[in-house]
C-alpha cells in the first residue's frame, strides 16, 4: 500500500521570534516493511542553516537555525511511502516471557535495536510500580510473551478511555494511569512502563495511521494527528513486534512508522530553543491518504 502523507505544523508566537534553533524528527526512514519513495521538508521562514543527521536510534534529525524574525513558523512534510509489512509471529509460538527476559539481560548487542536500550526506565516511562502490577496479571509464568503483550494491550483498550482533554504532552503516566484516561501517547507509555517493570523490553514508536478507514472498517483513533504505539521485543528469534493499544490492533499496513525510541522524549517531532517569545500556539494537521489501489 502506498500512502501520501502531508504533515503541517504551524506555530504562532505571541511576539516576534528573533532566533530559533530546533531539531525536527519528521522525516521517515526505510525499515523492514516500509520504503520511503519521497520525503520533503519545507520550512517558512527559510532557515539560515539546516543540517541532517541520524540519531542513535536510527531516526532522521534535521537541525535548523532560523535567524529571520518571525511570528509564525510553518513546517510542512510531504512523504510518499510504500508499506508492506510481514505478518506478525504467531503469539502462541513466541518464547516464554521469562526466557525473553533473560535473553534481554544477557544481550551482547549495543546496536540501535538491541533490547538493552528499551529495558530500563526512561523520562516518559519511568519506574512506576502500579503499571508493573497492572501488567503482571497478563503474564503467568511461562506464558508466551506475545500472548501476554496482546492481552495487556486488550486490557488497556478496555480499561482506559480515549480522551483528548484528559492529558497533555507533559502529563506523567501516573496521572493518566489513575484517571484511566488519555491519548495514544499515554497508553503507549503506560504499556511500556508495565512491560519494562516486568523486565521486558518495550519501545515507543511514533507515526501515522490512515485517515480514511478501509472500506467497511471503523475510523481509527488518532488519524488526524500523529499517532504513537508500542513495540515489544519477543526474543532473539522473533525480535520486535508492534502493538497499538489505542486501537487494540497489531501493527500492519495501516500504520506508517516515523521514529522509534525509548519514549516520547527521544523522538519528539520538534524540539527547540526559541528566543523572543514565551507563549506559542501550535496547530498540527495530518493527512494520510492511500493511493488508488493499482489494478491488481
Amino acid at each position, binding site marked *: 500500500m502506498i500512502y501520501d502523507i502531508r504533515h503541517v505544523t504551524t506555530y504562532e508566537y505571541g511576539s516576534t521570534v528573533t532566533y530559533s*534553533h530546533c*531539531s525536527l524528527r519528521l522525516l521517515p526512514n526505510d525499515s523492514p516493511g516500509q520504503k520511503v519513495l519521497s520525503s520533503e521538508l519545507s520550512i517558512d521562514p527559510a532557515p539560515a542553516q539546516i543540517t541532517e543527521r541520524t*540519531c*542513535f*536510534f536510527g531516526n532522521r534529525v534535521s*537541525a535548523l537555525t532560523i535567524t529571520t524574525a518571525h511570528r509564525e513558523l510553518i513546517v510542512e512534510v510531504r512523504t510518499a511511502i510504500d508499506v508492506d509489512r510481514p505478518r506478525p509471529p504467531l503469539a502462541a509460538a513466541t518464547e516464554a516471557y521469562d526466557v525473553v527476559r*533473560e535473553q*534481554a*539481560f*544477557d*544481550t*551482547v*548487542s*549495543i546496536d540501535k535495536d*538491541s*533490547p*538493552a*536500550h528499551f*529495558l*530500563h526506565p526512561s*523520562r516518559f516511562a519511568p*519506574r512506576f510500580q502500579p503499571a*508493573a502490577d497492572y501488567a503482571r496479571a497478563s503474564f503467568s509464568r511461562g506464558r508466551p510473551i506475545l500472548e501476554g503483550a496482546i492481552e495487556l494491550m486488550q486490557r488497556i483498550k478496555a480499561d482506559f478511555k480515549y480522551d483528548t482533554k484528559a492529558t497533555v504532552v507533559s502529563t506523567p503516566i501516573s496521572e493518566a494511569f489513575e484517571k484511566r484516561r488519555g491519548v495514544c501517547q499515554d497508553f503507549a507509555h503506560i504499556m511500556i512502563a508495565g512491560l519494562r*517493570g*516486568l*523486565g521486558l523490553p518495550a519501545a515507543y514508536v511514533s507515526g501515522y495511521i490512515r485517515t480514511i478507514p478501509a472500506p467497511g472498517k471503523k475510523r481509527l483513533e488518532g488519524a488526524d494527528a500523529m499517532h504513537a504505539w508500542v513495540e515489544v521485543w519477543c526474543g532473539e528469534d522473533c525480535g520486535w513486534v508492534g502493538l497499538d493499544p489505542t486501537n487494540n490492533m497489531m501493527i500492519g499496513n495501516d500504520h506508517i512508522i516515523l521514529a522509534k525510541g525509548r519514549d516520547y*522524549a*527521544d523522538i*519528539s517531532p520538534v*524540539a*527547540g*530553543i526559541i*528566543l*523572543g*517569545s*514565551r507563549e506559542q500556539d501550535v496547530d498540527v494537521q495530518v493527512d494520510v491518504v492511500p493511493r488508488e489501489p493499482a489494478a491488481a
Partner: protein
Amino acid sequence: MIGATDTMTKELTAAERFTALVSDYQPLPGIPDEFIGADGRPRAHWLRYLDFLTDLGADDIGRRFAAADRHIRDSGVSYRIYGDSNERAWPLSHVPLLIEAGDWREIAEGVEQRAELMEEILADIYGEGRLFAAGDLPAAAVTGCPDFLHPLHGVKPPGGKFLHIYAADIGRGPDGRWWVLGDRAQAPSGAGYALVNRLVLSRAFPALYRDMYVERLAPFFQAFKLGLTSMAQRSDPRICLLTPGPFNETYFEQAYLARYLGFLLVEGGDLTMRDGKVHVRTIAGLKRADVIWRRIDSDFADPLELNARSHLGVPGLVDALREGGVVLANALGSGVLEAPVMMSFMPKLCRKLLGEDLRLPNIATWWCGQQQERRSVIGDIEELAIAGAFGNPVLRFPRNQPVIGAALTPEDRRRLVAAIDERGVDFVGQEVVNLSTTPVWRDGRLIPRPFVLRVYAARTPNGWKIMPGGFCRISDRADARAVSMGEGVQSADVWVLADKPVEMVTLLPTDETVRIRRIMGNLPSRAADNLFWLGRYLERAEATLRVIRCLAGRMIDADAQTPTSGWTVAKLASLLVTWHAAPGASASDPMKLTALALHGEKDYGSALSLVRDARRAASFIRERLSPDAWRLIGDVNRALETNGKGMLTEAEAFEHADAALRTIAGISGLAQENMNRGAGWRLFDAGRRVERGINACRFARHFANKDAPADDLDVLLDLIDSQITYRSRYLMGVTLSTVRDMVVLDPFNPRSVAFQVERLDEHLENLPLLSDDGMLEAPKRLVVKLGAEIATAVAAKLTNEEILDFEKSLLNLAEAIAARYFLQGPNVARADKSSGLA
C-alpha cells in the same frame, strides 16, 4: 574536698596529657581503627601527632580550635544540604586524618590505575563497544545507568580524552587494606573543600603542620590546571567552570576553585553555541570558551539533545562536541562509571584492558542481571548488602543507600527477593565490610568515628597526578559507606605524611613562561549585570537608611522642633512610603514606620529587603568579591535581621540605621580601595552612580521645591551628606538656589547629580566597544547629552520639571546599560529585580 578540687585544676604535664589522651582512646569493638592498629597498638605516626598536639596545652588547643572555627565562619566557607534554602557553615573536624607514606603509595598507585581503567572503559562504551561484543560487560548493565547518554555514542571527545579529573571513595577494611567503595567520574566535588580544610587547619597549627612533614596540595591543582590548558587548541585558552548556580549544594566550592585556579565561573546562560563552538557572552561580545570544567550533571548540559527541561545547560553543546569545538572535563556521559553495577565488572575489566589486577580492590559486588549471580545473591541475602544497580532506591529506602540483608524484616526480605527475581538488572549484592574509624575530638577526648576518604586524580600531559591528601567525611553513623554532607557529618583535613621534611616548592612559574597581564579577560554579561545591580541595591539601601536616620534624628532632637518641623517629618515618612520601604498604613505612626522601614520583610523597599537583594546579587558573583566584602554584606544583613524584633525607640532606630550605614560605607571603602579597576569595578560603580543620581534628583524634588521651608532644605543637606561642605562654603543659612546647586549641578560635590554623571561618562568611556566604527554606543550617547544639559543648567532658573527630566534620563541610561551589556532574551536566568528600581 578542697584537696580534690586542687588535683582537678592542677596543670598536667605534657607527658601526662599525652598518656591520658592515648590510654583513654577506645576503638569500637570489632571495627578496625586508624589510630590503634590491628595488633592493638597505637600507630607511630598518630603518636607523633598527639605528642606534638599535647605539647600545646589544653587552653592553647582550645584557642586554636576556636580560631579555626572563626576562620571558617568569617570567610564564609559554606555548603548547602540539598533542598535547603540556607547555607551552612562548613563543619571541620579539628583532628586531621593521618596517612603515612607507605599506605599512601598503595592508595596513590591504586587510584592512578583505576583512573586509567576508567578512561579505557569509557572510550570503549562510547566507542567501539568491544567489551559488549566479547561479553565482558553486559549491554543491559550499561544502558540502565541514567548517565549512559545515547546522543554521545560515537562522539569522540575533543582532545581525545574522556576523563580529566576522577575521584575514588575509599575506606580501610579489617585486613588493613584500602578498598574502593565508589567511583566519581562525572564532576567529583570536594577537592575545593579539601583545599579549604588545609588552609584552615594549617593556619591554626602552623608548627604542627610543618613538623609532621605534611605533603602540599597546591602542586596537584597546578597540574590539573596545566592538564586542562594543554587540552585546548589555543595556547592561551579560556577555561570556564560551568556551575549550576548559587543554589547548588557546593556552589561555595565552585566559586572558590574558580578563583583559586583563575577559571571563569559561568552558568549555562553565559554560554552560547555558534558555528560548532561555545562562546561566553561578555560585555565585549562573544568570546570563545576553549575548555569547560563542568559541575553540572551531563543530563542537564544540553536541553536540545539531553534533558529538554534543563535550564542549566547550553543548547547545542552536544553539537559543538561533535564538531570538536570545545573540550569538556569530564566528557558528557562519564557518570555512567559511578553506577554501583560497574563495580561488579572492574576486576575482570582491569585484567582485560590493562592486563593486571586491581591494585586497590573494590567492595565485592554481584550484578543480579546475571542469572547465576542473582541466584547466589538471593541465597546469601542475609550476609550481603543490596544496593540499586544504577543508584535507584531499594524498596522504600533512600537512594544510594545500601540495605543490609540481615537487618530486613522477613516481610521486607520477601518483597526484596521478589523484586530481584522480577527485575534483577536493578540490583547488586555487595559484601558487607566493616570500615575503619579515625579519631575525632569531642570535649577534650578522642573518640573513634567511621569515615570515607575521597582521593583525586587529575590528568596532566605527563600522566595522572594524585592529590596527596583528599576529602574526608566523618560520619556519626556506624555504616559509613554512603556519607554525604548532611546532618551530623563532618569533614576532616587529610595529612599525607612524608618521610622527610617537605620542600617548600615554589609554584611560581618562571619569568619566561608567563605573559604579564593586568586585566583578567572579558567580563561575562551576567557578572556585569549582577555587579551593576549589587551597586544599585547597596546605594538604594544607603539612601533609604539615610532617610530613616534623618527621620529618627528629627524625632529625637527636641531643639529642632520648629513650626514647620512636623511637616518635614511627615515628608520624610511619606518618602519612605513612596519608596515602598514601609506600608502606607503606617505613615501616621512615625515610630512604627521607622521600625518597619529598617527591619520589615514584607515591603521590597525596606532596608532589610534591599540588603537582601544586594546579598543575592552578590551571591551570583561571589568569586569576584573579596571575602571581606562578602562578609560585610552578610554582617549588615544579619544586623538588620536580628535587631528587628518588636518596636524601637527613636534612639534605637537612629543607632540601627547609623550602624548599617557604617557597614555599607565599609563595603564602599573596600570597593574603592581593593577592587581591581577592571570592567567589573566600573559596572559596580556605575550601578551605584546611577542609583545615587536618581536618588539625589528625587530628594531635590521632594525637599527643594519652589517654596521649600528652611527645614526641608536642611533635611536635604543631611540626606545627601553635604551639611559640612555647605556650612563651610556658605556662611549664611540655607537658600533654595545654593542648595539646589550643591545637590544637582555642582560637579565638585561627590554627592551631586552632576558628579555622578561625570563618573558614569568616565566608566562608559573605559568599557569595551562592540564595534570600531567610531560611533557612540547608546549608553554613551545618553550620558554625554545629560552631562551637557547639567553642565549648562543654571541653579537660579532650575525647575522641578528639569530635575525630573534629569532623573528620567538617568533611568533611561540604566535601561541602555542593561540593553548593551547584560544578557538578553527569555532563556536567560537573571537576578530577580524588585519592580521599584526600574
